[in-house]
């Protein structure tokens, strides 16, 4: 009950703190208006201890007891300034964010820049409403540090950078200074590859005419472990015969001339669920790329010509990720 209220109040506060801001353009400077300071639980315990010491000093008329309390109280005040200073005027901007498959956490990189000629120690960054453990880091004097924040992904498409809390309790752990930021950054989430997919949609006669002259049909390039989707005629039967208990191996063929593969939306017509279909297409794409097989992609409204390589794969996966969402 109280927990719920607290969570709600906190959510309100975050909204208020980021009023009119999200998402913010880089670089985000944490100026004094957006750095908040409150005692930690330890700080409250410290204050309570001071009150008890004060009672003792009063009761026994200990002048040095008063001095002790006042010195420690001064220490508490000074710590406020140090914690505040540790955070204020830090600037942060989003870094590169590698695309991920849905289900694996996205890693948002944040680059923290410390323009001050002193090191900032013990900063903690975490996704405001997240569950992941905070990233702890120091930012060297006049330098940079980067933190990678994990955010779980569920669905494909663009994932906006979540709200970030950046806090510090340095130096004594008595005071917490914190700030919120919503950097303008996004991460592309590919569809999760299907765990089980039909065999690769081989098209033996596809673009036979394009085959270059004078080359043999298949340029054998190597072997890899057999996968369920591999065509049976590519199994290295001779190799399998030589070793009795070894795994089945699939022959790999280099070059664009070997087989033609069309990864086509229409090939998955049997399934109703668009996401499931995209998953299967993703799996095919990955398998084709792993086999070094060139492939083409046909999606409603989008065609990728036959090619292979990481750039081609990224293009294809991006097309699947954003399928149906309009322009990227």
């Amino acid at each position, binding site marked *: 009950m109280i927990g719920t209220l607290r969570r709600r109040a906190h959510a309100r506060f975050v909204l208020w703190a980021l009023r009119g801001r999200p998402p913010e353009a880089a670089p985000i400077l944490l100026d004094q208006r957006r750095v908040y300071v409150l005692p930690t639980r330890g700080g409250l315990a410290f204050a309570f201890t001071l009150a008890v010491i004060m009672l003792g000093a009063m009761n026994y008329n200990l002048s040095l007891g008063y001095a002790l309390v006042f010195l420690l109280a*001064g220490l508490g005040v000074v710590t406020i300034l140090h914690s505040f200073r540790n955070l204020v005027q830090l600037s942060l901007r989003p870094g590169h964010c590698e695309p991920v498959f849905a289900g694996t956490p996205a890693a948002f990189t944040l680059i923290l820049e410390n323009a001050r000629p002193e090191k900032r120690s013990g900063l903690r960054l975490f996704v405001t409403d997240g569950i992941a453990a905070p990233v702890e880091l120091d930012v060297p004097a006049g330098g940079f540090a980067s933190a990678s924040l994990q955010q779980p992904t569920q669905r494909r498409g663009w994932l906006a950078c979540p709200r970030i809390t950046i806090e510090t309790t340095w130096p004594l752990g008595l005071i917490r200074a914190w700030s919120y930021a919503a950097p303008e950054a996004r991460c592309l989430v590919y569809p999760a590859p299907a765990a089980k997919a039909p065999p690769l949609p081989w098209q033996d006669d596809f673009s036979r005419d394009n085959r270059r002259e004078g080359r043999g049909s298949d340029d054998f390039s190597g072997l890899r472990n057999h996968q369920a989707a591999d065509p049976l005629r590519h199994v290295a039967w001779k190799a399998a015969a030589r070793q009795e208990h070894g795994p089945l191996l699939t022959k790999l063929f280099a070059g664009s001339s070997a087989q033609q593969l069309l990864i086509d939306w229409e090939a998955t017509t049997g399934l109703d669920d668009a996401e499931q279909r995209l998953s299967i297409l993703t799996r095919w794409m990955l398998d084709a790329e792993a086999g070094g097989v060139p492939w083409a992609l046909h999606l409603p409204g989008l065609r990728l010509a036959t090619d292979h390589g990481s750039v081609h794969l990224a293009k294809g996966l991006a097309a699947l990720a954003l399928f149906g969402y309009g322009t990227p």
Partner: protein
Amino acid sequence: MARLDRPVSGRQGSWLLAAALAATLPLVPYLPSWLILAAGIVFTWRALLLWRHHRLPPRFLPPLLALAGSIGVFIEYRSLLGRTPGIALLVIFLGLKLLEVRVARDILASALLCYFLVLGQFLFSQTIPVTAQAIFALLVITAALLTANDERPPLKEQLARAGLLLAQAVPFMLLMFLLFPRIEGPLWGMPEDRRSATSGLSDSMAPGSIAQVSQSDEVVFRVLFKEAGAIPPQAQLYWRGPVMPAFDGRVWRVTQTRPAYLALPWNVAGPAVDYEMTLEPHGKSWLFALELPATLPAESALTTDYQLLARQPVRNRIRLAQRALLLASPGREENPATLQEALALPPDGNPRIRAVAAEWRRIHGDDPAAILAAAEDFFARQLLIYTLNPPLLGKDSIDEFLFDSRRGFCEHFASAFTFALRAAGVPARVVAGYQGGELNPLDGYLVVRQYDAHAWSEVWLRGQGWQRVDPTAIAAPSRINENVTAALPGGEPLPFLARNDLAWLRELRHRLDAVSNGWNQWVLGYNPQRQRDLLAQLGLDSPDWRSMTAALAVLSGMILLALTFHVLRSHPRKDPLLILWRRFTRKLARHGIQWSPWQGPIDFAICAAEKLPARAAEIRAIADDYARLRYAPKQTPSDLAQLKARVASFRP
């Protein structure tokens, strides 16, 4: 908070143990030996667990040990409250808290206990050395807290940072120390805090008891005379303590229940001297006023035998503004019961002096002044020797002193003289207190130490009242005119500070005492009264707690504001290299070539050169310069200038 959830590292544990040691070691002299032993075992145990990476004891064990320790403290002191038992309990809790420290967060609780134990030191002593020790402990404890939050910095850096934090706290401390409205304690009773046996005068006097007190050089009180030129001569400095009219043949005693005057029973006009006395706590009520008091301090009373008593035993150092009448003989109209008491003698014993006194009585009849003169004459003729080491006396102690051994300290003189006068029918009583004192030329304070303890007689003469007679002065006038050292024969075992043979030592002693007195007066003795005086001097008329709080709030707010301003104003001195790079990328951005922060300079140059082939060479040169300046180990100003020129002349 992840860092605080990590198990305590070796370094954090070591710092915490150091903090615990720094907080508890100064308390060792005040704690029972079994507790010190137990604490030592627990600390060593914790250290072994830490350094050998053993598991902590099971969770149920520390509370059980704490319970056992508390029972031990209760058996020792019959209480769990109050000064010493309280500190003992805190030490026990600290030891067991140490056994419970598993993760870095737990360090805080132990550190707070350590801060509390620093106060414990002050309960027993607040001298300058103790303060230095406490500052050291604060440094170590603060460094331990720092280490709990960030364990990487090495020892020196950690101590330096702790020192910096504490040093920055000092302005706030000074401000609060001066302005925080003080309350005169105690807030609640301290029944069990009876001062354990101290040297000092007691309410009875047996042969040898004053000599015993004289063995200490502890300061009893310090006196600052208002007019430095009007310090009475040494022979008039009689600081009156217990008055002992009752004698049982061996021991003189104070009459326990005595009525007190509400106002001073004598005319306070006449030659007087004003002084301020800073009385050290001695656990008894005597205020040791200079004879005879002309003022009655607050919370004090004057008994009918003129003992100035505080209503509560003196447990704290107190400061009293006093005035003394130097030439007064009070009690001309004395109460017959008091006179009767001043004539009482045990039925038998000391026949020889009784015979001598009867002879005086026979010759001089009812003339007490003549009897007094005869007694003084008798004491002078007996050739008595003033010594700290008189022989032990038997049953008839006064006879043995006067006629056989003839050696004694002031209590022998006072006792015998008073006895003799009573035997001759003249009312007399023994007064104990301090005589003389040493003037410190550096700060003008007269310091009275235990070795200035003295006893003298007081004789009632009809029509003249009570007269002070010091029989010691008859045998050893230098005791009264100078000090105890001058009066004693060489080789007597005097306390170190009482010796005055080494001039440089005396000088050093004066210096140390002036420093320690300044500390007592201004730091330890900064009480509500002194606070009001100081603020009045600073122009704060009739300062009450409201104006003090307001001043405190305004001033500390000003310091805080100034510091905050400083924090925000110390504007980032930007990296010149970065400024140049930004200027360069801005120029390119105007032509649609965006630089992203994750791009390295060389990668970016390749991309930019592709899009702007006409300027490829320039772009590469700038990126190369930047990369070299940024990542190569040494940079020279000329390189920076070259880059600056290149960026300036770059026109995409």
